[in-house]
């Protein structure tokens, strides 16, 4: 029988649809009877969504500026030299 602790261990797999039919069904049955686990699944789902909306991968503008400068310099180096005679 699936206990609350077992469910907590595979809750992310359930949320992401990574479980097989049987396991997923046993979680659904457990959730029908267990308010605390329903709450936990809801909490974990919201935690995942917090990350989705969060610009967690932000980097400093200084880093972007340094990279832009280096890319610009590399692009300049690739340009053929100007030939005003043509």
């Amino acid at each position, binding site marked *: 029988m699936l*206990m*609350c*602790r*077992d469910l*907590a*261990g*595979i*809750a*992310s*797999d359930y949320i*992401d649809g*990574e479980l097989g039919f049987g396991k997923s069904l046993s979680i659904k049955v457990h959730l029908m009877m267990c308010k*605390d*686990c329903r*709450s*936990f699944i*809801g*909490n*974990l789902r*919201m*935690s*995942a*969504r*917090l*990350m*989705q*909306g*969060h*610009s*967690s*991968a*932000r*980097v400093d503008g200084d*880093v*972007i500026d*340094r*990279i*832009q400068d*280096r*890319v*610009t310099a*590399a*692009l300049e180096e*690739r340009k053929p030299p100007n030939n005003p005679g043509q």
Partner: protein
Amino acid sequence: MSTPNALDEQNLIEALKRGDQSAFEQAVSEHTAGMMSVARFYVDPSSAEEVVQDCWVTVIEAIQRFEGRSSLKTWLHRIVANRCKNRLRTSNREINTDFSEALEPELDNRFKPSGRWATPPRLRFDESADALMENGALSDCLDKHLGQLPETQRSALILYEAHQHKSEDVCNILDVSASNLRVMLHRARQKIFLMVETFQETGEC
């Protein structure tokens, strides 16, 4: 991050192939954050920027060979991952990973020996995730806790959740098995949940 004049992906790729400087500016501002997340999975933070800079210089030429079999984002992330792996091979540095238990110890302690909850979740979400994130203090707290996650978990979480990569792509980019990725994601989400629960109850981060 995109601006009203931003090119869509197909036009951006074509402009990159022409060596268009404004296209590179757009690509750098849109994709550097994700590339840094990949680099930080493999190398220390001080080396990550150097790796990503080198990758962008490589991209100037390599974009000619991009055939569109994956998204530009996935292609760029793979370039970073490959460069990091080469660097690790030459330095013999090992990646520190913890793929042991599925449950965070702090959460595991909240169950009775019978396997039922002893201390059930106390968090109540009355608002959407977007509304919650408008709380600046909570957003700062999330930043702080993300910064404290092991690099492996943070990178997996950011690539999967924030950058919306498929599991298969994250495994490929980070060179981890599907089961290890599942554990990393689950452990990271539990930490976020525990953090938000404490924040909501105490107002403290």
